[in-house]
């Protein structure tokens, strides 16, 4: 299974849509850097596949003042959790 690492905002880039299209059931996606803005985009979050787990890096949310504003579909994850996601998935793709 693949971990997709996304650092672009869905409000300004087509990359988040490309990343979603490249997921298969059982993949996970982690929002980092400006990717965490995706967690506020109702259109993008509504298009999330149900069988793909979506996380946002808590440090990057907090730095941007977004702590409590994320969509219910998006779980938060610490840096340690991000590392563990890369370890438990056999490969990663960075989307930028």
């Amino acid at each position, binding site marked *: 299974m693949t971990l997709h690492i996304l*650092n672009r905002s869905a409000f300004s880039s087509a990359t988040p849509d490309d990343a979603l299209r490249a997921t298969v059931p059982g993949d996970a996606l982690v929002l*980092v*850097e400006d990717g965490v803005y995706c967690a506020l985009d109702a259109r993008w979050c509504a298009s999330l596949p149900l069988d793909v787990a979506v996380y946002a890096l808590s*440090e990057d949310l907090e730095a941007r003042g977004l702590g409590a504003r994320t969509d219910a579909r998006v779980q938060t994850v610490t840096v340690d959790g991000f*590392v*563990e996601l890369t370890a438990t998935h056999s490969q*990663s793709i960075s989307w*930028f």
Partner: protein
Amino acid sequence: MKYTLIVYGAPYSSQAAHSALRFARALPGLGHTVATVFFYHDGVYNASTLITPPQDEPHLNQAWAELKTTQGCELLVCVAAALKRGVMNDAEARRHGGEVHNLGEPFELTGVGQLLASAQSSDRTVTFAP
């Protein structure tokens, strides 16, 4: 697990270097190690010894050097990407008729083939882009 981290982002222009460093620092606590950090694209600027941030910002060049001290990882810089961007060691500077250089230990210049070789010999490869 052994990790290769690839960095494309220039320091202080994007978050890529900060993200890669915090990821690398979290690895040992979880039983993993970073074996290689490979700097490519604008990431090669991280290797410049002339980096001089204001005192209230992290010194990214020193932070990479500390990572090598604490985790014993290689800090590899693509020579082709670095030279055309004006980042080079003493030997390359002399070879090209220059008198100044801005790259030295613990960073090493290497070919981009080493990026793929490092990726293939690691358990995981994670890319940090601008």
